[in-house]
């Protein structure tokens, strides 16, 4: 089932998801953006229009702390958040299809790879496609290894040089939710780019419609 929220699950988790100060977060995200550079020329390469990058909804897995932190940040930025509880059909029918049908919008998320695979293939029904995907290999308490898998229309920094494991999901959400709109658009280019594999622990992603084609629901 799908639960829209107010996300109770993230609130129940207490401080562990939110022990990043705003200053730390902005500093981290800001450093990332500065390091890689936002440029308007890069935005010109985008296959979709800037206004299509409005983030309509953020999908998260309430059983994963990093995903909850990701959603928490998205929510703070005014993005609707939806918990994914292993029922992709309901998610598609109640959330994703309407979001994609009701105007240009991006859907972002942080989920398990299998769930991303299903969501990605569901959104292909309306010719949407993944514009950004990154794998986050998380083993025990060590720092996660981040790898860019797809980076078509935006560019997001997720370095391995951060100090706090709690920062990166929030920083990622901040950047995905701040994807270009209007004149401020400016994607970050990342290295890498490969077919998505299913052997990672977590995947963050952004799915957006094709430039001109949308199908009515």
């Amino acid at each position, binding site marked *: 089932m799908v639960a829209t929220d107010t996300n109770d699950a993230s609130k129940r988790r207490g401080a562990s998801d939110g022990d990043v100060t705003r200053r730390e977060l902005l500093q981290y995200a800001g450093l990332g953006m500065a390091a890689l550079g936002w440029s308007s020329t890069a935005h010109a390469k985008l296959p979709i229009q800037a206004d299509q990058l409005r983030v309509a909804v953020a999908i998260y897995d309430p059983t994963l702390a990093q995903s909850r932190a990701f959603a928490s940040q998205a929510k703070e930025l005014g993005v609707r958040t939806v918990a994914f509880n292993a029922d992709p059909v309901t998610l598609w*029918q109640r959330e994703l299809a309407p979001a994609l049908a009701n105007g240009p919008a991006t859907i972002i998320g942080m989920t398990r790879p299998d769930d991303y*695979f299903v969501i990605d*293939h569901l959104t292909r029904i309306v010719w949407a496609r993944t514009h950004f995907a990154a794998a986050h290999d998380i083993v025990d308490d060590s720092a996660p290894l981040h790898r860019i898998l797809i980076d078509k229309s935006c560019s997001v920094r997720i370095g391995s040089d951060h100090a706090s494991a709690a920062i990166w999901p929030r920083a990622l959400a901040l950047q995905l939710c701040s994807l270009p709109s209007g004149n401020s658009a400016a994607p970050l280019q990342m290295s890498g780019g490969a077919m998505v594999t299913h052997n990672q622990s977590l995947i963050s992603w952004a799915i957006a419609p094709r430039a001109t084609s949308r199908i009515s629901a």
Partner: protein
Amino acid sequence: MKLPPSVSAAVFNQAISRFQEVVGKDWVFVSEEDVDLYRDAYSPFKGEPDKEFVASAAVAPQSVEEVQAIVKIANELKVPLYPISTGKNLGYGGSAPAMSGSVVLDLKRMNRIIEVNEVNAYVLVEPGVSYMDLDQHLREKGYRLWVDTPDPGWGSLIGNALERGGGWTSSNYRDHWAAHCGMEVVLPSGELVRTGMGAMPAARTWQQYKHGFGPQVDGIFSQSNYGVCTKMGFWLMPQPEASYIGIVQVPKYEDLIPLVETVNYLENAELFTGLPIFFGPLTYNKYIRGPVVAAEALPDGLVETLMKFEKPPYTALEKFCADHKMGMWGVEIQFYGPPEVIEAQWAYCKKRFSAIPGATMEDGEMLTMPLSEEKAKTAHKVTYGIANLEAFVAVGRTPANPNGSAGHLCFAPIIPRDGREILKAQQVFAELAKELQIGVPGWPPIVGMTNFTRSFVFTFNFPVSEDPAVNEKTRAAFKTLVKTAAEHGWGEYRTPPAFYETIKETYSFNNFALHRLHETLKDAIDPNGIISPGRYAIWPKNMRKS
């Protein structure tokens, strides 16, 4: 971009331009990013771009008239098309064409549910309607009808029926091809044909009587490349008053034989109509019916015990099962109907099963339909006509492999509904798998699926890897299994394009007489070979190797 064979860039560009005139520029896809969406996500050629089946472009019409116009252009310019419905078919080739360079004819925009008739329990749909679409429509509109859905339910009714897929509810509906009634097909010439009663303009029985007048030709459009199906009717299952699952377990290895015989009798006599799910010791604990694989619920030491014994008589395994109060084999049988009828049916079934010494019967719970939301959470949804995608959760993720795999290839030979054959298949495939040094299909013991009432589908999935070397080994093993299965009379019912030719070689009666008939039909109906060249190993004359 990979162009179709024997099509120049100039001709291809002309085709694209004319397709754009028909459907508009927005609905002709030529960029790499767009065409990538049609790649087979479970391709056994991952990392091998020269071998992977890929499209050159795609075109997405919204009406029958647009399909006709596209087909006529393709015929004139001899550009091959590859029609797909909603394009899932994972494990069997996805939406990628059987011949690289083909233009995918994507019918997803043709997504109208044209008619639902509750009194006569049928539906008429276009190719873009998925099981989950129809399920949602039936619920929202309050129809007391179920659609029999495969697992997963995001595929097209038409696409799955044309592939001859199977479902999970009552026996009259599980064979999706058999449950269809009436087709509309655009022939390679662009001409529009309706089959059965659809050939009579004033008939109101297109979805009520399958056969019409004269030869029944519907079958030539399944697993084939003779036309583009644009409408199809299906018989739907009236929502039953109740449903009930009874469980039978038997203690001995050889008991599978009378267990299957008893199930066959009861099913063929329609004393129960739900899908019988057979299970062995590793699939005990009702995991099949549950929403997730519960491997952790297996008794300690079971897997080790299973793996120690590779040949019959398995007395230690029988003892292990007895010690843990679990059957060596079991079956869940599901009933649909009024509670009083179900109670009588189950009572009679128990009487028949009790003829097997040591058989135990477990009563279930009489569930009234529709299922409550609470009950649906833990139910095996497809057996209640609920389209879902839990298969990806259940199959892809286990405690040992929490993130699933990179895909799979479905190996699915048809095996007689006979316990002896199952026991034999387990041994044959287990020994072969050991020899080939692959994961052990068939052992620990699996029994086979019963989506089709008179046979088993002895299904197991070969994992697809990101490593081309692993995939090469997997493909070779798959082909060896196909050949070995054929030597025992077990034939694949459906397969990914990578194995069409291998499987064609196993259907060789009378020097491939059936295959030659398929080719004769191809030459007559599609002389320019523009519809799905190579699909199910049927090639147009100008592309045949010898």
